[in-house]
Every structure is written in C-alpha cells, then in structure tokens.
C-alpha cells in the first residue's frame, strides 16, 4: 500500500511539472510599458557597497548612479563639473581646497547634507583604512568645517590633480546616520545623494534602483533601473536577444558584438575606453634587468595581431601607457620592427643558436576568455624573431597577484582611478611605487619628471604636458612596462533603447538610459 502511495506521489509531482511545462508558456519581455523600467545585464559583480572600501569598476558604476561626489565628470566628457559642491577655491600654495556646498539637499534616509557630513565621511575613510583609502589618506591631511555649507580640505602637499581625486568615490559624502563611523558596511543600501536610490539588492542576482525624488538635477529618464547579474556572457547575450534585458553592459564575448550587429533588434554602440593592457617587466630579474631585452620585446610584439586575433577588433593598438584620447598622449613606442628586435637581441648576446628563453605569465579568468589568445599571439610574435623561445605560464588571479615580484614578464590590465596621465604612469615607474606592481623599475630621471608634473601649477598647462611627453619618451627607451592595446567601450542594447552615452571615464550613466 505504501509503495503504491510512493508511486502516486511521484506521478503527481511529475504531473505538476508537466502542467508547468505546458501551461506556463509565453516568454517575458523586459519592458513594462508605463513607468519606464530599464533592465541592464552585466557579468560584473558588486563587491562592497561601502564607498570607503569598494575599489572595483562595477561597484563604482553603481556609486556613479546612486552617490554623487563634490565634483563629477560631465557625461560624455572627461571634464569636471560641480556636483554636490557648487564651486571651490584653491589657496595660493595649492594646499587648501575650500568647497562651497549645495544647500537644501538630504540623504535618502532624510539626514541633511552639510559640511559636517562631508567631514564625517572623510574622517570615516581615515578610520576604516579600506582598500581605496590611499586616494584620500595619501593626499588629505585633514578636513575642516568652515560653516554649515563650506568645507575645507587641507592637503599634506600641493597636488594639482586633487579635484580629480575628489571625483572618486572614497570622497563621496554618505549619511552619518546610515553608515557606521568606523566599520565597513559591505551590504549597505543607504547610498548617498544620487540620481537613484537602491530599492533592493540581492548579491550576485539583482539590484533595483528607483529615481531619487530629492535629486537636485534633472530627473533620470527611466524611473526604475534593474541590474541583473549573469554568471556567463553567453547567457547574457541570449537574455538580450530574447528581450529579458534591454542593455548588456560589461562584458559580452568579443565575437558576440560582431554577431549582434547583424540582428535588427539589437544595436551595438562603441565608445572610447580607457582600459589598457600591457606587459610588466621585472627590471630586477634576469634577463629583463637588461634593457636591451625589454627593448627587443617592444620591437617584436605585434599589437595589431593581438587586436585582430584575440580581441576581434574590440581593442586598438596602443603605443604609450597614457591612453589615446587622454590629454598629453603621444605615440611614444615604435611600430613593430623585427629586424631591429633581432639587432637588439644580438647585441644582448642572443642568436638563433642561443635563443633567449623566457616565461610569459598570464591569468586565465580575471581578464576574460580572451586572455589565453593574447598570450598565444604575444608568444607567436616574439618567436617570429627566431631568437626568442617563450614558455607560457598561467596562474589563477589569487596566485598571480601573490607572485608579483617573482614573475619576470607578465600580462596585466589597468582601469583608471582618476582621469589623469599620472594614474597611468606613476604606479608603474616611480621608485617608491614600482615594486608594488612587480616592475621594480627605478630611475632618477623618471622620479624627477613625476615630481615636476605633480607640482606643476596648471593641471592642463603646457609645462605639465611637456613633462608627460618626456615621461612617455623615456618610457619607450627604458621599457619598464610595454603597452599593448586599449579597449573600446562596447554596449549592446535592444534597438528601442536610447540615451547610451559612452565616455573614457567608463562608468555608464544609467540616469540617461531611456527607451521608446
């Protein structure tokens, strides 16, 4: 009797499932019609919703839409414009920045926005010492409240690009009543004062943003934005094709963009990116302690092949660590020249009979599926000299980062912290910073250039521009790192979506997304 029951239960469950299969037909579209909801897909992840500790591209993009800073980048440009501060003054010695705040604003929890809140937020970064704290603590000595709506940042030393730092998220004012003063709040949905408020967040699944009724500027085009988190780029592509999402942000596979361009229901939008790929040489480790070897690799590497074969045209060849389109960029590195590479290798004591044997390290998941192709193309290009033998070595990211300093030649990528050439050069080639990235490059001349550019009076003046051009020229001679490619920004969206504005700052402006 019991056995019979077992079968009936099994059968009943099967029927329920079968009914589900047949009765619940009908695909779901992302569009709701009224109220304009935009559904975004991404394969990125939110790591930490606390601006005092978050330090990754996607989380900063969420902040960009939910948490304004005193100054921010004007969409579509790399120019700063007033944000939560209406204006600012700089003292003559360049060590004091006084910001005049917008009045009458409040945080989503109702706490008023004022100079005390700004000071409290910066003091909190000092106390927490989170991952991006250096953007504040390396530069700011302390913050003073001048009056309710005036706040003064006193710097340790004059730094001409301080306004650019203020536009980064460790500087974002947060509500003193919503965040703990000395603890990281990784799952906090309090947000700051932004276009949107976080309505709901389920880690790695979904984040729902609703328009902030107290936002001081133009209201966002879509009243609600839903961000869906995908584990797999192919699934995200299929979700875009069947209308489950309206926009696929970072990142689809490079081949997907070419395919999707042929689909009349999908548009692929291309914009300038500021992410770069490069090779790091450990200047302390043989054979890369020999400048001739580094130079030879620079002449032998085939950037166009990397772009064509590995990135399917979604990157461009890059001949400087300062990305194209950024103020002061020059094409400092020479074009590919195998004969010159061979000459340099011969000068360094290598030949076809006695080839240079080197390990090229790469990491399989951190930079996506294309990375093995990048490594293979670099290997093929170097071996074309007939005088280099490359062994490809790979390690997972956790291992890879642990090996900085013990790898001689390895692939890395860079996203900007702030939109200034200093951010693309100083961390790799300054004597007091290069060992952290595993390059160990040291040059008195380069250090002098850095000091000069950091203390120049005019951030975008001719004097500073000349210094950066010199830095890039010296870079091509000493080759502490070797720039390879610069990524384009690519967004795929349903054809009825409008308002996608891409700029080198790279954070997507959800508040401009709209659909017909």
């Amino acid at each position, binding site marked *: 009797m019991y056995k019979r029951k077992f079968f009936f239960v099994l059968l009943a469950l*099967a029927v329920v499932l079968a009914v589900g299969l047949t009765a619940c037909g009908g695909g779901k579209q992302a569009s709701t019609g009224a109220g304009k909801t935009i559904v975004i897909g991404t394969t990125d992840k939110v790591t930490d919703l606390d601006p005092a500790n978050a330090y990754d591209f996607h989380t900063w993009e969420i902040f960009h839409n939910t948490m304004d800073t005193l100054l921010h980048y004007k969409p579509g440009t790399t120019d700063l414009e007033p944000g939560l501060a209406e204006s600012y003054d700089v003292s003559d010695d360049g060590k004091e920045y006084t910001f005049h705040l917008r009045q009458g604003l409040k945080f989503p929890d109702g706490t008023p926005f004022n100079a005390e809140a700004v000071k409290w937020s910066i003091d909190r970064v000092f106390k927490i010492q989170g991952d991006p704290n250096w953007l504040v603590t390396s530069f700011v000595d302390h913050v003073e409240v001048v009056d309710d709506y005036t706040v003064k940042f006193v710097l340790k030393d004059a730094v001409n690009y301080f306004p650019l730092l203020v536009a980064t998220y460790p500087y974002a004012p947060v509500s003193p009543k919503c965040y703990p003063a000395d603890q*990281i709040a990784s799952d906090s949905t309090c947000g700051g004062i932004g276009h949107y408020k976080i309505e709901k967040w389920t880690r790695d*699944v979904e984040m729902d943003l609703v328009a902030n009724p107290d936002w001081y500027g133009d209201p966002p085009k879509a009243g609600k934005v839903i961000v869906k988190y*995908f584990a*797999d780029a192919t699934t995200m592509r299929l979700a875009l094709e069947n209308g489950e999402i309206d926009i696929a942000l970072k990142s689809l596979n490079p081949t997907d963009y070419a395919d999707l361009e042929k689909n009349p229901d999908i548009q692929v939008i291309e914009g300038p990116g500021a992410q770069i790929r490069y090779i790091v040489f450990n200047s302390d480790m043989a054979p890369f302690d020999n400048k001739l070897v580094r130079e030879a690799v620079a002449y032998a590497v085939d950037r166009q092949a990397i772009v064509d074969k590995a990135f399917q045209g979604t990157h461009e060849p890059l001949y400087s660590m300062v990305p194209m389109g950024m103020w002061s960029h020059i094409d400092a590195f020479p074009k590919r020249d195998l004969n010159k590479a061979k000459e340099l290798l011969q000068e360094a004591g290598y030949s076809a009979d006695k080839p240079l044997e080197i390990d090229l390290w790469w990491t399989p998941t951190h930079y996506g599926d294309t990375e093995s192709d990048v490594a293979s193309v670099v290997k093929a290009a170097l071996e074309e000299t007939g005088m280099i033998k490359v062994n490809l070595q790979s390690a997972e990211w956790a291992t890879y980062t642990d090996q900085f300093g013990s790898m001689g030649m390895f692939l890395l990528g860079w996203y900007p912290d702030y939109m200034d050439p200093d951010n693309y050069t100083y961390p790799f080639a300054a004597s007091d910073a290069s060992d952290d*990235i595993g390059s160990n490059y040291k040059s008195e001349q380069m250090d002098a250039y850095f000091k000069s550019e950091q203390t120049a009076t005019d951030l975008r003046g001719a004097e500073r521009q000349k210094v950066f051009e010199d830095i890039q020229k010296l870079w091509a001679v000493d080759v502490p790192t070797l720039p390879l490619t610069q990524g384009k920004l690519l967004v795929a969206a349903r054809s009825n979506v409008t308002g996608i504005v891409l700029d080198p700052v790279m954070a997507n402006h959800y508040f401009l997304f709209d659909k017909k």
Partner: protein
Amino acid sequence: MRSLGRYLLVRTLLTIPMIFVLVTLVFLILRVMPGDPVKSSIRPGAPQEYIDEIRHTLGLDKPLYVQYGEYLWDLLHFDLGTTLSPVRGQSVSEQIWEHFPATLELALAGILVTAVVGVGAGAYAAHHRRSVADYSLRLYAIIVYAIPVFWLGLMFQLIFGVWLRWFPIAGRISSLAVAPEHVTGLYTLDSLLTGNWVAFKDSVMHLILPAMTLGLYLSGVFVRLTRSNMLQILKMDFITAARARGIPERTVVYGHALKNALIPIITMMGLQFALLLAGAVLTESTFSWPGLGRFLVERITYRDFPSIQGAVVVFAVLVASVSLLVDVLYAWIDPRIRY
C-alpha cells in the same frame, strides 16, 4: 526496528570522523595551494604594509596550527567563520544558507525530471524489448549522457528561450515579479505556501529549463539502469506466476516488476542527488542560478578559505545524510532488508 536504530546511530557517529578528516584535508590543501586571499581581493600593486595589516586583522599571520585549532574550535560550536574575500567579515553560515535553497530547488526539480523520464523510459524499453522504441531509448540514453551539460543548457536556452520564447533563460525569478515571502527559500514551494500565484508561475518558468537540462542529462544513466534491472526481474518466477494468474501485463510490468527493480535505482538516485547538490556548478553558471555550487567555485578563485571550508562541510553532511536516507528507504521499500 531496534537494529535499524542502532545502525543509524553507528552511521551517524561514523560521519563525525569522516567530516573531521575532510575538513582537515581541505584546511591544509587550501593553505598549501598557491594564492593569497588578501591580494586577490584588493587592487594589484597595493603596498605590502597595507596587505600585512589586513592579514594581521584577519589572523592569517598566525602559525598554521593556531589557525587550525581556532577553526576546529569554531566548527565545534557550529561557527563556520567569516568571509575573507571578495568581501571581508560576512558570516559564512549566512552566505551558505542564502545560496543553498536555490541549489536544493534545482536539484529536487532535476532529480524529479530524471526519475520520471529515466525510470519511465527505462521501464518502457524493458517492457518493449527489441522494439524500435527500445533501440531509440537506448540510443537516447547514450547521446544524452555524452552531451556536455552546459552545451545542453545552451541549446535549451537558444531553442526554448530565444527562438520559441517560451521560457526565461536566467535567474530564479523575473525582475518584475515579486519574490515570494521567505518560508523555505524554495521559490516554487514558498509561492505555493503563501498563495502567490504570480511568483509561482514565474519561478516554475525559470526552473524548467535548468531542471530539464540537469534532469535529462542524468536520465540517460537511469534509462539503462532501469532497463537492465527490469529485464532481470521480468525473467523471475514471480512475474511468470503473476502473468499465469491473469494479472494485466501493464500491472505486472509497472506494478510488480518495476517495484522490485527499484533498489539499485534508488541507490543510484541517492548518490546522484547528493552529486547534484554538490556539483550542479555548470548548470548554475549557464543559467545564472544563484546556488551553492556557483558560490563555491567563485570563492575558490578568491581563495576565501572559510567559505570553501564551510561549503565543503555542508556538502559532506548532505552526502552523508542522503546516503543514510537511502539506506532507510531500502528497508521501507523492501521489507526483506534488515539491519
């Protein structure tokens, strides 16, 4: 019954040293493996002093035996610790309980599809031995088992999600549907219990493709297993006797023979269910299903030691519990079995 109780007690007690050995191995292997949980979660090129400071805060600079002792002590108190990376300080237990219902729901639905399709088709093939249907089902069994599960999932997504647009292809519930109130964490069950029919329909729709992918993939084994067991049973004397008594053939095959062929099938199903709980990683990734398998793989890449250890402990307990349950089921299904 008393002997069954003793058997269960002994089996449960044996689980403890098994888990102890497992956690010790996992603890040691993780520490021997290259890779640093701190460096993997912060920007490349962070100063060494900063890294050392975090490592000190997290207790990773203590001698290994001290870390091990502290870990065991916490484990004895059912404390799985806090995460190291990518976010520090979150409760591992909470993280696991957050992800487990999704995996359980998918595994249950998958095993249901397997049971219905695999066992049903296997019994049918045995009943119609050497017919076209038999050969077709045997071929199906081989093909479906040979297909990589993620590819099967992608094909289902393409056909039923993109071309036919019958089912959604990612997640557990639609962005625009309200998730059911939390009771068990199983969306389909919770929406039924709370009478949230919109959420029920939506969560069933989301469950179908991943469950079909997992279930059909595993059904191949069960087609073959059921068929071969059924063929043996159908040759036995009691089947001949049943037929001689004039019992309808359908009842003989699906009532008497199938029941008697169930023991090895249930054993295999128990094992497969345990594997599903622990190993539906590819399906979870393909369908962006926020389950425990995906969580574990992600945390391995971050070298988040406490999360990996915690997930392994949970999986070990689950596998032990399911195999224990299977043993009890034997006695229930076949009264001849004694412990």
